C-alpha cells in the first residue's frame, strides 16, 4: 500500500490526463484507487531487463487476434508518452524544490550578488535555474549595465531590452567594443598606443563583418543605440551617473548630444574611440551635465581633432563647476585654451593631457601659485609631441620654489623626447636644464615619472622612488565621485599600468611588455 511521493505525483497527473481523451466514459469511483495500484505495479517492472519486457510484449501481441495488435501497439506508445511527460513534470518540480531548499541566500542577497555581475554573466546566471531567473528580473540587477564586449555582438535591441529592465534604477552604462581589455587587465598591460592600434584592428574587423553580411545589423550598434535613455518619459537616463562608450563606430555628434541631454545627473563620462568632435561633445556636456565630476575623452584620431574653441572652454568651466578629473587625450589643445580649463575649475585635482598635440607647456606658467592650479594632485603630460623642454624646466623650477604644494604625481615622460625651444622636430633626450634630481630631493612625497629614450633607443633616466606604493593613486583620485563609490575605468587602468613599469626595475619589464604588446597586435591581425 505504501507508495513514494514522486510516484503519487505522477499518478495524479497521469490520472487526470488519461481521463481527458475519454470524456464519454463514466468513471467509477473505484477506478481511482485501481489506476494508482496498477500504475505502481507497472512501474515496479522497471527493474526487469529490457529484453525480458520486449519478449513479454511480443507474447502479448501474439495472444490477440492479428487485426488488433496494431491497436495494442498504438496504446502502448501513447501510454509511454503520457508517462514520460508526467515523469518529466515531476522531475522539474522536484528540481525546483531542491533549489529553493538548498540555495542559502535570501532573495535580496542573491539580487545584490547579481547586481555586481556584468550583463552577460547575469544572463548566464539567469539561465541556470528558474530561481535565479526570478531573482535576475529585479531592476537592481540591471542598475550597473556592462555591455562591453571583445568583439561586436550587442545590438540596439539588446541595449533597449536591458535599459528597459533597469528602468529608473539605471545608474551605470558601459557600452561598446573594448578590445583586449579583459586580457590586458589580467596579464599584459599594453601601452596607450597599443590600445589605439587594437582599436584600429577592431574597426577593420567591424567593417569586414559588416561587408561580409551585406549590411545585416544583427550585432552592430548604430547611432540610435542610446535612444532608450530618453524613452519612457526620460526615466532611465534621469539618474544615470556613469556612462562609458567605447569604439561605437556609428555614433555621431548629434546622437551623442541627444543621449547626454537625457542624463542630467551624469557624474562620470568616458569616451574612447568615438568619431565625435571634442568641441561638440564638450558643448553637450556643458549644456546638460552640470553635476559632472569626471570627464575622460580619448580621440579616435590622434592629433587631428582641432575643433576646441576658447568659448567652449569658458562655458564648460562656468556650467560644470564640480569637475575634479579631466582627461583629454590625443587632441590638438593649444596652451591658451588649456589654461582656461586648468585655471577655471575650482575643484580640479586630476589632469591628463597625454598624447595631445600643440601643448608646449606654456599654460603651466604661474599656474601653481594661484587658486586654479594650486589644487592639482596629479598631472600627466605623457607623450605630448610639442611639450617643450624649457617649459618643463620652468615647471620643475616652480615646484622647487614652493608652488604646486598638493601635487603628488607628475608624469612628463615622452617616448620621443621633449621638444627643443626653437624647433619641435629637434628632440631632447638628455636634459641639462631640468632640475629633476633637485625636485626629487626637495619633494620626496611626490612621484615624478620622466622617462626618455637615449640616442641608442633604450630607456634611461628613470626617476621614481615611491612608484610601487602609489601606483593606484591616479586611478583612485580620478575615479572618485561625490557618491563615494569608486569607478575603475578600463582605459584608466590600462594606462596607469604603464606607470607601474616606470621604476628602474621596471625598465626591463617595460621593454619586455612592449614586445608582448607587439605580439598581441599580430594576434589581433590574424
Amino acid at each position: 500500500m505504501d507508495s513514494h511521493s514522486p510516484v503519487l505525483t505522477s499518478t495524479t497527473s497521469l490520472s487526470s490526463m488519461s481521463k481527458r481523451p475519454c470524456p464519454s466514459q463514466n468513471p467509477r469511483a473505484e477506478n481511482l484507487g485501481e489506476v494508482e495500484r496498477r500504475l505502481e505495479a507497472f512501474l515496479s517492472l522497471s527493474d526487469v531487463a529490457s529484453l525480458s519486457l520486449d519478449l513479454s510484449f511480443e507474447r502479448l501481441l501474439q495472444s490477440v487476434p492479428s487485426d488488433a495488435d496494431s491497436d495494442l501497439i498504438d496504446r502502448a506508445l501513447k501510454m509511454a508518452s503520457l508517462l514520460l511527460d508526467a515523469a518529466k513534470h515531476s522531475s522539474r518540480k522536484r528540481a525546483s524544490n531542491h533549489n529553493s531548499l538548498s540555495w542559502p541566500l535570501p532573495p535580496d542577497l542573491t539580487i545584490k550578488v547579481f547586481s555586481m555581475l556584468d550583463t552577460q554573466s547575469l544572463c548566464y546566471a539567469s539561465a541556470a535555474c528558474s530561481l535565479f531567473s526570478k531573482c535576475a528580473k529585479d531592476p537592481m540587477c540591471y542598475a550597473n549595465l556592462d555591455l562591453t564586449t571583445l568583439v561586436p555582438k550587442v545590438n540596439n535591441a539588446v541595449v533597449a531590452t536591458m535599459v528597459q529592465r533597469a528602468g529608473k534604477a539605471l545608474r551605470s552604462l558601459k557600452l561598446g567594443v573594448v578590445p583586449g581589455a579583459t586580457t590586458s587587465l589580467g596579464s599584459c598591460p599594453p601601452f596607450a598606443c597599443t590600445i589605439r592600434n587594437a582599436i584600429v584592428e577592431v574597426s577593420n574587423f567591424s567593417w569586414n563583418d559588416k561587408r561580409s553580411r551585406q549590411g545585416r545589423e544583427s550585432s552592430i550598434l548604430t547611432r540610435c543605440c542610446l535612444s532608450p535613455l530618453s524613452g519612457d518619459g526620460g526615466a532611465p537616463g534621469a539618474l544615470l551617473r556613469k556612462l562609458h562608450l567605447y569604439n561605437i563606430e556609428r555614433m555621431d555628434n548629434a546622437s551623442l548630444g541627444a543621449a547626454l541631454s537625457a542624463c542630467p545627473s551624469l557624474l562620470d563620462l568616458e569616451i574612447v574611440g568615438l568619431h565625435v568632435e571634442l568641441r561638440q561633445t564638450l558643448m553637450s556636456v556643458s549644456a546638460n551635465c552640470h553635476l559632472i565630476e569626471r570627464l575622460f575623452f580619448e580621440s579616435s584620431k590622434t592629433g587631428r581633432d582641432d575643433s576646441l574653441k576658447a568659448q567652449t572652454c569658458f562655458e564648460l568651466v562656468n556650467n560644470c563647476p564640480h569637475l575634479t578629473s579631466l582627461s583629454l587625450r590625443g587632441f590638438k589643445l593649444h596652451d591658451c585654451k588649456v589654461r582656461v580649463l586648468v585655471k577655471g575649475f575650482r575643484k580640479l585635482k586630476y589632469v591628463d593631457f597625454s598624447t595631445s598635440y600643440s601643448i608646449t607647456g606654456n599654460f603651466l606658467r604661474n599656474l601653481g601659485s594661484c587658486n586654479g592650479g594650486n589644487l592639482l594632485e596629479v598631472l600627466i603630460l605623457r607623450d605630448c609631441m610639442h611639450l617643450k623642454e624649457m617649459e618643463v624646466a620652468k615647471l620643475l623650477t616652480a615646484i622647487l620654489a614652493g608652488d604646486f604644494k598638493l601635487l603628488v604625481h607628475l608624469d612628463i615622460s615622452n617616448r620621443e623626447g621633449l621638444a627643443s625651444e626653437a624647433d619641435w622636430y629637434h628632440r631632447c633626450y638628455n636634459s641639462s636644464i631640468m632640475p629633476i634630481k633637485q625636485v626629487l630631493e626637495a619633494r620626496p612625497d611626490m612621484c615624478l615619472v620622466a622617462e626618455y629614450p637615449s640616442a641608442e633607443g633604450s630607456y634611461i633616466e628613470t626617476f621614481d622612488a615611491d612608484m610601487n606604493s602609489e601606483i593606484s593613486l591616479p586611478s583612485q583620485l580620478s575615479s572618485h565621485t561625490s557618491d563615494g563609490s569608486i569607478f575603475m575605468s578600463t582605459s584608466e587602468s590600462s594606462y596607469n599600468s604603464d606607470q607601474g613599469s616606470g621604476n628602474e626595475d621596471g625598465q626591463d619589464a617595460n621593454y619586455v611588455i612592449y614586445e608582448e604588446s607587439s605580439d598581441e597586435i599580430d594576434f589581433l591581425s590574424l
Partner: protein
Amino acid sequence: MAKESGSSKIEMLEISNEAMAEAQSSKIEMLEINNEAMAEAQSSKTVTMKPAEAEESKTETQKITDEESKNVPIAATEEESKKLSITKVEESKNAATATTEGEKEEAKVSLKTLDGVTFEVEAWIAKEMETVQAYIDDTSADTSAAIAIPLHNVAGRELARMVEYCKEHRRASVSAGNLKEFEERFAAALNLYEMKDLIIAANYLNTKKLLESLSRCIAKAIKNKSVEFVRDYFGVTNDYTTEEEAQYRETNAWAFRNVDEDSRN
C-alpha cells in the same frame, strides 16, 4: 480472494442509508485533516465518496499541507521573538538589581553566539556591526557593559571571521592597493559554503563593508562563466524544460554568441 472481499465490503457500505453515509464521510474528512500520516491508510475508504467530494477533500488536504509549510518559518520567527522578549525581560530585571556605582565603563563589548561562545570585542568593531550597535544604543551604557549581547543567528566561527575581517580591514585601509590585496586573500581562504554562511551572518549583523566584499567575491567567481559552471558552482539543478531553455537562449542570443575563452570553464 482479497479483492473480492474488499469489493463486497464496498458494496455493503453503499447499501447503507444516506444519513450514515454522510456521517461516515464527515468522519473520514476529519481524519484526513487531523492526521496526515493516516491519510494513506484511509485511502481505500475514500472510494465511498462522490467524485466531487473526493476532489474537494484532496484540495483541502493540499491546502492544509501548503499552510503547514508556510507556518514553519512563521513558527521559527515566533520562537525567535519569544527568545528575544525573554532576554529583554531578563535584562530589565538585571538592570533593576545591578549596582554599577563607582564602576568605570569598559571599552569592550561582549557578544554571545548561538553556540554559546562569548566574544570580547572593541567598541569600534561592535560599531561596524550596525545590528549590534543599534542594540547597544537601545540599552543603557551600564547594562550593556555588564551583559553579553546574545546573537541567536550567528555561530562562533562566523563571528570570529567577522572580527578578524574588521581588524585587518582597518589595518589595510592605509592604502587602496593593500586593501584590495587583503580582501582577495581573505576571500581566497574561504570555500563556497563558508562564504555563504559568512555572508548570511554579515547580513544579519548588517556589517556593510564585509557584506559588500563577500558579494563582490561571489559575483567574481561566476563572472564570465558558462551556465553549466554556475549550476555546478552553486549546486543548483536545471529545472527548465528543453523548450524553455532554448527560448531563453534565443531571446538573449547576444550573450551566448562568441563566448569568451573563460566562459568554457
